[in-house]
């Protein structure tokens, strides 16, 4: 390996291999985000009793929305990290196409399972629900859903194997790519840039997540085929939440590479890895895997120490994120004379949204709070904050940056309108969720009591704004693709 990227200069100087594949992925992501948001809007409107929706269809939409959003967040994050990883590594394009193909195969299977097979057992496929539908769907539908996950998992596995292999080739070991030389104070004349530190960490924890996820998927599939083969429900739940937690977090940790690589173009200051940054990412690597227990705080049969660890790590896991990424972003932006275009505005918003979203998450991560809050709207409130205002904003920011043209221009009227509508819609939407949670309105209920309708209807109105903002972003991206040579 040569040190081709040693003199890396951010921006146009760096090659952008496979930009076509990444752009296609972002179009798909944008389209699916929009479609899933419409599903969300329909569910909110149905809860608010503005439209009639069959309860079975509600749960199918809930399942599609969950699986679709998690998958698309991961897809867009993966495309972003591939794009910026390609600045520092030589990546094989064929692997990305295989990844995308397997992902789309998975999407087809999942959509078929839900809307043809009627599967409505939520994206978490918690054992033994997929096998106990009470007649709502056949075992084949649940199996197709899980096979869809498996296809997506295989795609991601290939993606991480290629990435890990290239990082390993370029840096000699993943430990070095994680910045251990920086942490240990050793000399390193070619330290890994932030995007590589992030890529190394995500590669490690998400590969572990996928391998364990594949195990529980295969065991659940065997159970569906041969009902005599039971799996231990608690172990299955642990594995599913480990996999699910790690996977959705990985989507944000992949997408954040856009912040590391793009913001320097605006601030003029390169974003470099330093010791604190490396320590933070190594902490993230551990915390992401150790914190999943906070999803199981209501499972009284869990060993108490695990729940205590879940609560403690919940507190700590905000620190590396807020201390390093959010605080650094703040410093970078404050000290510079930054140009605010749609891309930079969305990226800064995304870091803010991600950080703010971690606060209600930490609150829900307290055992005493969790007991009363975890089944309320508080929980969708917190994860919509760091997804809608975090990961999705990162993806839209990246998309806006991809088609920025040759010069950075300030926001025009449509950009401003889109940004304002999206921000207002998303902020209002998640606030309603959090308020509803605080008012003890349960989550995942297809039919709501009269007293809750005001909440639902305000939420519905805000979600209309989110969909509008999203449509502006996505259509703007597609319209500009033609005229930018990228």
């Amino acid at each position, binding site marked *: 390996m040569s040190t081709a990227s040693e003199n890396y200069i951010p921006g146009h100087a760096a090659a952008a291999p496979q930009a076509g594949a990444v752009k296609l992925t972002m179009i798909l992501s944008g389209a699916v985000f929009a479609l899933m948001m419409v599903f969300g809007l329909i569910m909110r409107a149905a809860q608010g009793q503005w439209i009639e929706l069959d309860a079975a269809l509600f749960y199918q939409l809930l399942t599609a929305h969950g699986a679709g959003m998690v998958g698309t967040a991961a897809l867009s994050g993966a495309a972003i990290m591939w794009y910026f990883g390609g600045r520092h590594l030589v990546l094989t394009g064929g692997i990305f196409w295989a990844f995308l193909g397997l992902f789309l195969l998975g999407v087809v299977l999942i959509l078929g399972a839900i809307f043809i097979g009627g599967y409505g057992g939520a994206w978490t496929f918690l054992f033994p629900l997929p096998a106990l539908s009470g007649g709502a769907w056949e075992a084949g539908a649940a199996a197709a859903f899980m096979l869809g996950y498996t296809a997506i998992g295989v795609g991601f596995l290939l993606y991480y194997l290629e990435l890990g292999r290239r990082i390993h080739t370029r840096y000699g070991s993943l430990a070095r790519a994680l910045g251990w030389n920086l942490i240990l104070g050793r000399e390193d004349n070619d330290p890994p840039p932030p995007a590589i530190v992030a890529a190394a960490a995500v590669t490690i924890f998400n590969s572990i997540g996928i391998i364990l996820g594949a195990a529980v998927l295969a065991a659940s599939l*065997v159970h569906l*085929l*041969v009902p*005599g083969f039971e799996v231990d429900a608690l172990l299955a739940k642990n594995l599913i939440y480990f996999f699910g937690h790690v996977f959705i977090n990985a989507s944000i940790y992949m997408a954040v590479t856009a912040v590391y690589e793009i913001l320097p173009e605006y601030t003029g200051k390169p974003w470099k890895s330093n010791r604190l940054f490396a320590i933070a990412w190594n902490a993230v690597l551990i915390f992401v895997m150790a914190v999943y227990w906070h999803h199981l705080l209501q499972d009284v049969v869990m060993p108490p120490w695990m729940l205590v660890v879940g609560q403690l790590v919940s507190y700590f896991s905000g620190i590396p994120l807020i201390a390093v990424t959010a605080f650094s972003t703040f410093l970078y932006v404050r000290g510079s004379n930054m140009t605010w275009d749609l891309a930079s505005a969305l990226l800064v918003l995304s870091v803010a949204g991600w950080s703010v979203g971690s606060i209600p998450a930490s609150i829900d991560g307290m055992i005493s709070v969790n007991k009363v809050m975890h089944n309320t709207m508080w929980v969708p409130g917190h994860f919509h904050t760091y997804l809608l205002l975090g990961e999705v904003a990162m993806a839209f920011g990246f998309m806006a940056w991809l088609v920025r043209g040759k010069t950075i221009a300030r926001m025009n009227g449509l950009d401003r309108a889109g940004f304002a509508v999206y921000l207002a819609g998303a902020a209002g939407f998640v606030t309603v969720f959090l308020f509803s949670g605080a008012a003890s309105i349960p989550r995942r209920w297809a039919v709501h009591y009269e007293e809750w309708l005001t909440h639902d209807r305000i939420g519905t109105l805000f979600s209309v704004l989110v969909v509008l903002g999203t449509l502006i972003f996505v259509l703007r991206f597609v319209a500009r693709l033609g005229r930018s040579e990228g």
Partner: protein
Amino acid sequence: MLARALPSVLAAVAGGGILWQVTDGAQAFTSEAARRLDVVQSPRQVPEVLLEDMVGRQVPLLPQAGEVVLVEFIYTVCGDICQISAADFAEIRDRLRAQGARVRLLSVSFDPERDTPEQMAIYGDAHEADGVMWTVARPRQKDLPGLLKLFDVTVIPDEWGGFQHNAAIHVISGDGSFSAVYDTDAVEAVLAHLDGGQP
């Protein structure tokens, strides 16, 4: 291109075909499942064997005059599964008796050395097998291996001086063929089988 891919495609097709074949079309992954599938597809003729029951009488294993025989393999000092399955067997007997069905239930010991008629009577008492519709019986030692092989029952000694075996309810239909296997607790399935499939 095509010629280069051909061996791979053939290997994949052959491999998939073999695995499909050996799992009976992805239906049977364990030998227990395979046995159950096989007897349904090709019922096995049961030989004329006489068993000795709790009171020392000789009873035939084969169904007599159009009746159906349900067989469980047991050993009387079994500490776990046989006790539970005996309770389910009793329930099947009660419900069949209420229906007036022509069915005989047999708990056949695979440990004829220890399971003397007295010993079998204790087991019968404990589970209300009164010898009328349901009796406990043992084969002659020389018939045992053939029976275990015919029914594909594997008996292995466990750590506690007892045995572990693939416990199940075996159906011998009126024509004298061993034609179905059910879980010991599949009471409803057995009753449905007798209801629908009785010759």
